[in-house]
């Protein structure tokens, strides 16, 4: 490293926010200063999405459905009612949640071709790939090639159903329960349920596989 390196100048340079970050801060400041919204509300909403919902919440719902027939029936009948009964709340009016059960005959996979609708009130924000043009364009016309890219092979005699989230319904896939999990606890089962399995691009993990 050069002895005359100006660390102060370098430090200032690395602290300059990206233009996009400045735009966000400008909008935020204007809205908070004018009293349209409160900073505490923004913080609360970010905390909720970062920490209180997410794939772990969805995995708990799926695992409960695997071991509790009565709960699975409720989940399939009214997703919002079922997940709210487990404390995943705040759905309000307007958004519906539909659970799609994978079976030996049917494999379900979810997309939003027109924007990026996703059951974030259960699973947190969608992964970047879910919002990509590559996924949104191709999964409807060639779902099996998309599944193959995720390492998922669906047998020819199994029907692939692609669910395009184009209205105010959000879908969560209940993957098939892996074999060899008899006697597992809800917590152990939840550990096998990945986010990608609940979108439908992967199967649930096998009990002896490591992530």
């Amino acid at each position, binding site marked *: 490293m050069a002895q005359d390196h100006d660390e102060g100048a370098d430090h200032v340079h690395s602290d300059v*926010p*990206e233009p*996009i*970050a400045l*735009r*966000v*801060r400008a*909008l*935020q400041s*204007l*809205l908070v200063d*004018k*009293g*349209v*919204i*409160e900073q505490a*509300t*923004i*913080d609360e*909403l*970010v905390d909720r*999405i*970062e920490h209180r919902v*997410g*794939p772990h919440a969805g995995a708990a719902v799926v695992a409960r459905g695997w071991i509790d027939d009565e709960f699975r029936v409720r989940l399939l009948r009214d997703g919002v009612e079922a997940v709210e009964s487990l404390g995943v709340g705040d759905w309000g*009016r*307007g958004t*519906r949640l539909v659970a799609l059960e994978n079976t030996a005959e049917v494999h379900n996979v979810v*997309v939003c*071709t*027109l*924007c*990026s609708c996703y059951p974030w009130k259960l699973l947190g*924000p969608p*992964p*970047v*790939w879910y*919002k*990509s*043009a*590559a*996924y949104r*364009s*191709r999964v*409807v*016309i060639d*779902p*099996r090639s*998309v599944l193959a*890219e995720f390492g998922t092979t669906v047998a020819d005699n199994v*029907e*692939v*159903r*692609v669910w*395009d989230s*184009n*209205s*105010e319904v959000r879908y969560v896939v209940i993957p098939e329960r892996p074999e060899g999990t008899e006697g597992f606890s809800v917590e152990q089962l939840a550990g096998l349920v*990945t986010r*990608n399995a609940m979108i439908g691009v992967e199967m649930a993990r096998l009990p002896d596989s490591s992530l």
Partner: protein
Amino acid sequence: MNGVHDLGGMQGFGPIQAEPEATEPVFHAEWEKTVWGLMLALSHKRLWSLDRFRRMIEMQRPVDYLQHSYYENWLAALERLVVDAGLLDESTPVAEAWTPVYASSAQPRYETGDRVRAVNRHPVAHTRSPRYVRGRRGVIIRHCAVEPLPELAAENICAPQHVYCVRFEAAELWGTAARDALYLELFEEYLEPMS
């Protein structure tokens, strides 16, 4: 609008670049968190409908839409909406402008098992009937809900209408031999009966 956002069935976007699930962060930058919080805090104020927000995203230049990240598109829409609603004007009060209703006195036109066709229509404004189903034949799986029609919701006008889950065979949509199927929810006026 037959915009670039209506991606279903388009080709040439290449492989899906998926980050490993175990290591993908919830947000990729601090500013993305703020955009998330702003979007939700503002939507709780009911200053506009979700379809109006979507419409603002769709009204960007196509090249911008495709180049932007997801949260950049959100920010672009929020900036338009905030100005459009006059929220930054000293004299404009913050007023609720979107009051959704989820009921209709009209009887549902379709029932489970009815054969329908997605209307071949090309509205220049916002719609939630994607191009790839228009003109195609499907079957009503069930009546799902009564919800505000997106075309008018995009103008903050609430016009509740029946919504149906419709199944389209992959063979009907894409001419393929696959036994696969597409499921969408479509508003009543997006559909016409098959004789």
